[in-house]
Structures are given as C-alpha cells and as structure tokens.
C-alpha cells in the first residue's frame, strides 16, 4: 500500500479506516480525509496553528453557536416555567420573535456543515445520522418560524438549536476520544513518513524515513523514535525496543551497538549509521501490516455497519408514523415533538463505532509490543480458540542441544565435565559444543589434553596428565574395553529411557561418568503453557520427534497432551481432530518449517520468525522470544470481544429503550439529543478501558506461582538442574 493511498483510506484524525465517502479538507496546505465531521473539527483544533487557522474559525463557530443556543434556551426555559404567563399575549409574541432572530444565525452557523454532509450523502443515495439531525432541526425550525408568523402558541427554536449544538459537541468529544485511543497507532501509521535528521558533511538536513538509504548518518535526539536500522557511531543512551521485541525494559546502547528502527531513544543523543533502506526495516513492515490489519473489519464490525446502514431509513419511517399516530386526536405540536424525539434518539451513532474502535485499539495494543495481527477477524477468532497446539523445536525449545544431566560413579560431576571439555575443546560436533558450553557456564577450566583423536561417529580419544581419556558413545567405549560400573550403567539406562542421548566419559581404562543431552526448554515455555492452561485452554504438543524425547519435553513444560512422531500431514490431521473434539485450534510454530501446518489451524501463530506478515502463513506473528506474550494476547482478544459486545449491547439496548420512550411520547427531543451524544461518548469511554490492558513486564516470573518460579529459575540454567552425583 503506498503512503498516499494510506492517507486517503484512514481518517487523518482518529486513524480509523474510512468507509464510504469521507470528508476531504485541506489543513495547513496538506490534503486530509476524515471519517466524520467531528474528526474534521477535532483535527483542526488539534493541529491548526497560526492566526488564520481554520480550527480557530471552527471553534468560533461552535462558541458563537453555543452563545446563541444558550440564549435561546434561557428564554425558552423562562417560557416553560411560566415566567411570562401573567404577561399579555403581545409580550409572548415579542419573545417568540426574539427567539426567531436568535435561532436563524444559530441554525446556519451550527447546522451548515451537517446540512452539507447530509446533502453529500443524499447525492450518494444514502442516509446518515447527519440526515436525521438535519431533518429534525430543520423541521423544528420551520414549524416554529411558521408559528411566529401565524401567531401560534408554541415555538421550538430551542429544540432546533440545542439539537445541532449537542450533536456537534457530541461528535467533537467523540472524535477527541477516538484520537486519544489511537495515539498508540499514530507513529506506526506514519512510520515511513517520519522525519529524520540526517547529518551530511557537517550539516543537518531533515528527510523522511522512507528516503533514508544505507550508510547515511542519522542523528536521533533524546525522546525521538529511531526511524532506521543501524549501528551506533557516537553517543550512548538507553532505548525502548518494546515495539520490536515486546520487551519494555530499556536497553543500553553504546558505539558499535545495533539499533532497530521503531525503538524510542531515551536520555542521550545517538549518531547512527543506517544499515539499510528506511522502507526495509521491520518497523516499516510492522507499520504496513498494521495498516492492512486496520483496513480489514471484523465480522462484528461488518454486521454493525450493515445494521446501522439499514437503520436510518427505518428510523425515518418510524418517526413519520409516530408523528402521524400522535397527530390523530392530539395537538399537532405534541405529535411533531414526539416524531422529532424518535428521529434523534434512534440515531445510530454509537453503533458504527462499537466494533471499529475496540478492534483497532486491540490491534494497536498488540502492535506496541511487536505482536502483529492480520486483521480484526483474526482477533475475533483468537478470542474463540479452545485448543493451543505447539510445535516443539524452536517454539518451546531453543532448538540447540544442551547437557541436561550428568551421572557419575562417584567422581565429582565437575571433574567429569572438565575432562570431557578438555577433549572437545576444538570440536565442531553439536554434542562436543554442548559439553564445552556447559563447562564454561559452570565456570570450569577444561583440563589440558594432548593428541586428541576424533573417531567419526564414535567419539574422541586423547591423553591428559599421562593417562588415556575418552569421550564417546557407550558402544564405542565398550569396544575400547572400558567397563561401566553397574550402578552407573543402570542410571544411564534410566536417562536413555527418558529420551536423552548419552555420551560416556572415561579415563584410566574406566568409564567415570555419563552425560545426557537433550533440547533445552526456552525459559518462558513452562510459564507460558501454565498461564494458557490457567486461562482454561487445552494445550497439546505436536511434533515429528520420537516419543521419548517428546514426552520428556511435554512433561517438563506441562502440556495436557503430546502427539509425537507426526509428519506435517499428521499434524494437520491432528489439528482437525482437536477442532472436532474441542473447538477452534491455534497452532504455535516458528513459522519457518511449519507454514502449511500453521495455515491449517484456525489461527496460526508464528513466534520469532517475524518477517513480512504479508508473506507469512501465520495470522499472528509474535516477536523473537515473544512466546510469553501469548497469554496476554489471548486475554486481550477476550477483552476486545467483551468490549465490542458491551458496546453493541449498549448501543442497541440504548436505542431500543430510547425509541420505546420516544414513540410513547415520554421523551423531549432536547433530552433525546443529550442521551444520544452521551451514548457515543460512553462507547468511546468503554473502549478506552482497553488502554489499560498491559502485559506484566516479566511474565515468565511474575505470572507463575512461587513454586513454579523456582522451577523456572532452574530451567533457565538447564545444567544446574542436572542430577548431581552422590558425593
């Protein structure tokens, strides 16, 4: 999507996608498009600068309109409360005339934009809320003017002007609230248009992020957002990379450190050498994904829009019928007022907002933590998911081999590891590297070994402190004729049965210890799975790995079920089975090897690969190491669903009750206008509550109960949990 298309598809003020015909308007020499008059007004108030600003002009309009409307209201209140009852009819006539004189400019000042909007809609053969209000105000005004001329008893200029004033005010407040709600999204939607300070030959010049190319020097001041990927050349600071990594703790950056576009620079100025084009950053891709996601309405939203569209003609008809009904055997004024009240109270303003705002807020909240969602509908599906299936390698485990246990014949485990590490020091074998890493992590210095000789597929033989030493497969050490103590052999068999690969370590012609290898869990896996189970979701592990290894991982993370030995087709079949048994299934994978499987789930969730969402089969992409955000994301999808539901319930319920009151003649039109403005505002405020939905910053520890927390801390260092030899 090009940047220009984006400006026309989204309201410049509230950033919600514009459906139907928008308002085009020039503000400060730039073309803008707005979804409604309220946004147009609020945008100009917020962005207008300088004495000639149109914002000020609009506010003057609102202020003068309010001045006239308040005067009209005051006179009318006095009329209603019978202040002029004792005065003769002539005085009343004069008061009516004064009201007319006040109401005419008020109608033009406040009503003109609405009349225009209604006219434009009529040209498109559609009816909008503005149509209803224009019609209501126009009728009240026209009837009252006629009453003044013919010397009628009652005038309703107050109704006409207050209707317009409240409607305008309500829209303005609503637009302000929406813009506040969309604050999160504003930087993303404008990512490529963000201003960048480029230093060239000692001079600073401002460019747009999309015009930055590789090798340019970019100056980022404190508090600014870093707009390009690059390396720090000068300066030091802390940056917040939440939008890329999901981690909101500041990260220190000094010269030589890589920085990511989208991070926010905290306290110090940084000079950065750009390492790629401004449009090629992950930040720019996130921004594009979010734009596309916002443009895809959820099902609830689509439904609400359709209903709102059908609502207006029905309301018009109903208002007409109501007026007709009350006109029979009743005063015409009362019938007119009742019809007006119906027209105003049934105005479906909140309805169009109910789904759109909450869904967009949800997408924005997620994007702030680097979690990308393909659209509103995905968020809806996610909220309905009952089963979470996990891929193993790269999702729950790190994908690399680690030493997971050491058993010995009584020799200290560290000694065994020291000897083994000495032999494997320069080994390229995965098991060898795992041994060296384990030794380093325990702070051991590898024993110096000479004449290390590698036997492919078997192990390594060498000399240390004048003794032959060997590390290799149990079979090879048996071939060498090195015996394994009986007790050690038994414990080794137990480890093998638990799904581990083994290596024996021996010296002086005897096996002294056995090392167990396995995939290490990611530190957040267990807490994430437990948190998901805490949400009442069924968790399963689907893997192509052999049963023993899969069972070990399944037991360690605590998933409800484990299905090993599955081919990709097998995984898809399994997803279908789970869907039939329990309901919608989400599949979590790394997004690299399991694309087709992710696509087969109701919601495919890719962790960490996080490249271009448009090319992903996953509907949701979590950032690198972002598995821990999954429970929060699901909770958020629930909150969004709840908000949309309460919004719709409120909008419908309110409209129905208000309509009932209005049709039965129990609602004043002015009161109806107050309620209508309040209804929209309530929808906005209800949706704004989603702003408070934040993940705890270290859920892998914070969300887990204390006992689990200890286990987690051990899992974070897998070697530490290795069984110690009985000393």
């Amino acid at each position: 999507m090009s940047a220009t298309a984006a400006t026309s598809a989204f309201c410049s003020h509230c950033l919600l996608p514009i459906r139907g015909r928008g308002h085009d308007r020039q503000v400060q020499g730039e073309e803008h498009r707005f979804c409604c008059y309220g946004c147009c007004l609020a945008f100009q108030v917020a962005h207008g600068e300088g004495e000639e600003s149109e914002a000020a002009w609009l506010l003057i309009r609102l202020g003068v309109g309010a001045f006239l409307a308040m005067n009209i209201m005051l006179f009318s209140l006095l009329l209603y409360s019978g202040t002029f009852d004792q005065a003769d009819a002539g005085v009343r006539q004069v008061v009516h005339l004064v009201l007319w004189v006040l109401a005419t400019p008020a109608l033009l000042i406040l009503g003109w934009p609405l009349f225009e909007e209604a006219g434009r809609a009529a040209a498109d053969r559609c009816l909008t809320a503005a149509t209803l209000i224009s019609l209501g105000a126009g009728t009240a005004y026209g009837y009252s003017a006629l009453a003044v001329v013919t010397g009628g008893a009652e005038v309703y200029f107050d109704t006409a002007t207050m209707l317009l004033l409240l409607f305008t005010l309500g829209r303005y407040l609503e637009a302000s609230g929406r813009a506040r709600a969309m604050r999160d999204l504003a930087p993303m939607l404008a990512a490529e248009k963000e201003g960048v300070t480029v230093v060239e030959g000692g001079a600073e010049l401002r460019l747009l992020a999309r015009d930055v190319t590789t090798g340019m020097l970019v100056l980022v001041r404190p508090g600014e957002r870093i707009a390009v990927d690059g390396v720090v050349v000068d300066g030091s600071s802390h940056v917040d990379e939440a939008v890329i990594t999901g981690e909101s703790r500041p990260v220190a950056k000094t010269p030589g450190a890589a920085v990511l576009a989208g991070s926010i620079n905290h306290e110090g100025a940084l000079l950065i050498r750009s390492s790629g084009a401004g449009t090629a950053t992950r930040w720019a891709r996130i921004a594009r994904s979010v734009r596309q996601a916002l443009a895809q309405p959820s099902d609830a939203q689509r439904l609400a829009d359709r209903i709102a569209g059908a609502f207006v003609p029905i309301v018009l008809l109903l208002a007409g019928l109501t007026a007709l009904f009350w006109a029979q055997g009743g005063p015409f004024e009362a019938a007119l007022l009742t019809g007006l009240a119906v027209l105003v109270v049934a105005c479906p303003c909140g309805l169009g907002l109910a789904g759109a705002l909450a869904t967009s807020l949800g997408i924005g909240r997620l994007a702030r933590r680097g979690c990308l969602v393909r659209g509103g509908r995905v968020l809806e599906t996610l909220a309905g998911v009952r089963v979470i299936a996990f891929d193993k390698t790269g999702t729950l485990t790190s994908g690399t081999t680690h030493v997971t246990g050491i058993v010995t014949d009584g020799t200290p485990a560290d000694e065994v590891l020291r000897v083994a590490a000495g032999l494997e020091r320069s080994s390229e074998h995965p098991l060898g590297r795992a041994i060296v890493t384990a030794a380093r992590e325990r702070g051991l210095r590898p024993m110096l070994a000479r004449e290390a000789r590698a036997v492919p597929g078997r192990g390594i033989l060498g000399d240390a402190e004048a003794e032959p030493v060997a590390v290799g497969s149990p079979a090879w050490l048996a071939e060498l004729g090195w015996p394994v103590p009986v007790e050690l052999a038994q414990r080794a068999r137990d480890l093998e049965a638990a799904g581990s690969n083994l290596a024996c370590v021996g010296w002086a012609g005897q096996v002294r210890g056995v090392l167990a290898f396995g995939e290490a869990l990611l530190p957040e896996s267990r807490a994430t799975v437990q948190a998901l189970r805490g949400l009442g979701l069924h968790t399963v592990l689907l893997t192509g790995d052999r049963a023993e290894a899969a069972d070990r991982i399944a037991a360690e993370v605590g998933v409800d079920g484990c299905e090993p030995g599955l081919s990709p087709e097998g995984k898809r079949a399994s997803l279908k089975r789970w869907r039939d048994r329990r309901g919608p299934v989400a599949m979590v994978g790394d997004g690299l090897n399991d694309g087709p499987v992710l696509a087969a789930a109701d919601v495919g969730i890719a962790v960490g690969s996080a490249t271009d969402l448009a090319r992903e089969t996953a509907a949701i992409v979590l950032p690198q190491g972002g598995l821990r955000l999954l429970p929060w994301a699901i909770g958020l999808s629930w909150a969004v669903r709840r908000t949309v539901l309460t919004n719709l319930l409120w909008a419908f319920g309110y409209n129905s009750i208000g309509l009932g009151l209005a049709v039965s003649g129990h609602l004043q039109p002015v009161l109806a206008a107050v309620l209508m403005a309040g209804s929209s505002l309530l929808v906005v405020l209800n949706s704004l509550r989603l702003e408070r939905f934040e993940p705890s910053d270290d859920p892998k520890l914070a969300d887990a109960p204390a006992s689990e927390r200890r286990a987690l801390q051990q899992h974070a260092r897998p070697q530490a949990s290795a069984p110690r030899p009985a000393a």
Partner: protein
Amino acid sequence: MIEYPLIFLAGVAGSWHCVGMCGGFACALGSDPRGGTATLVRHLTYNLGRVTTYCFIGGLVGFLAAGLCASGADASPTSGAQRILAITSGLLMVFIGLQFLGWLRRFHGPPGLGFGGGFLAGALRDLLRAPGPAAPLAFGVFNGFLPCPLVYAFAAQAAGSGGALPGLLVMLAFGLGTFPAMLLMGGVGGWLRRAGRASGERAILNFRWRQRGVAFAGAFIVVLGLITFARGVLPMSGHLHVL
C-alpha cells in the same frame, strides 16, 4: 431580595480568585490595535460570553431542580422536596466556601472532568490567537465552562433557588460581580504590556491581597450557603425567598 446584592458582592470579592485564574486570559486577550474603544468592546464581548454561560448554567440547573421537585405533588417553596434541595445546596455552598477560606482541603473534581478540561484548554488556547470580533465571544463562552469552584458554589445556589428565573438571576448577579475586576484586568494587562512590564503583570496576579479577597469570597459563600440552608431547615423562613 437581599440575596442578589449579597451574591453580587460575593462575585466582586470572588473576582480576586478570577483574577488569578481567568485574569490571565483577560490579560492575554490584550488590546485591539484600533484603539481604546475597540479594546473595551473586545473585553465586553468576552465577558458577555462568559456571563451568558453562567446564566445558562444557572437557568438550567434552576429549571431542572424545580422540575425535579415539581414532579412531587406540591411545588411551593415550603414543600418537602424544595426544602431538601435547599438544604443540599446550602451545605454544598458552605463546603465550597470553607475550601475558599482554606479550612477544608481542596477537592478536585471527578476524574472524568480531565477529558473535557483538556478539550476546553485546547479550545481556549486556539481561540486566544484568533482574530475577529467573534473570537472573544466564543472565548468567553468556553471560558465560562471551565471548572471553577466559585461557579460550582453559585450553581448550587441556583439549583436551590426554585426556578429558571431565580437561578438565572443568581448567576447573573454573580457574573456581574466579576465584571469590574475582569474588565480591569484586561485594561491593566494591556497597559502593562505597552509599558513592557511583564513582571508587573505577574506581581499583580501574585499579590497577597488576592488571597484575602478569595477568603472574603469564601465568607460570602458560607453566609449565602447558610441562608439557603436555613430556608430548608426553618419552615418559617420561607420569606427569605422573596422572588
């Protein structure tokens, strides 16, 4: 009838509070380049907008409160509902008045106010820079809606006054009371600016006697609150409510 002059005086005294808050606006509104008369018109329109808002608030709450009471059977000033209303308004005024006197901790409005307040502040900022004769009027209208304990106090009295007209008159008396000081501020502000003494402007706003004026206003509000309260408590004091 004695209430209206009292309210007017309370407005005059209370305008020392206004000088601190809205006086800044009046100063900022400044003078018209076309001369003294134009400047006066500018400030009169501003204050007209402000007082209109006050009157609207007063008339509306008076009407609504009276309507609320009239939904009961008896709408006379001595009816139960009227008395409860008078007692509530009176207590509210005493409460606000004591805050002005510094005897009660300042109460900050409900949290929802922040949103509307932010809107108003933004609107006022824009209008201040706008040219034309209508801008001061609009500025005054919005200014009138700014959260202000003085306005709350008299709105409470307007609610207890028993009708749209008395409610309107309460706020009108109060608004007119604040007129002289606010007009003066406009003039003083312009004069100080011409003299290039911005520090003098600040000195006036910070003067110690401003605090005494505010305390004075608090005392007026407490007295008026007690009168309103008494009207509800003492059945025979109906005559205090003359209009």
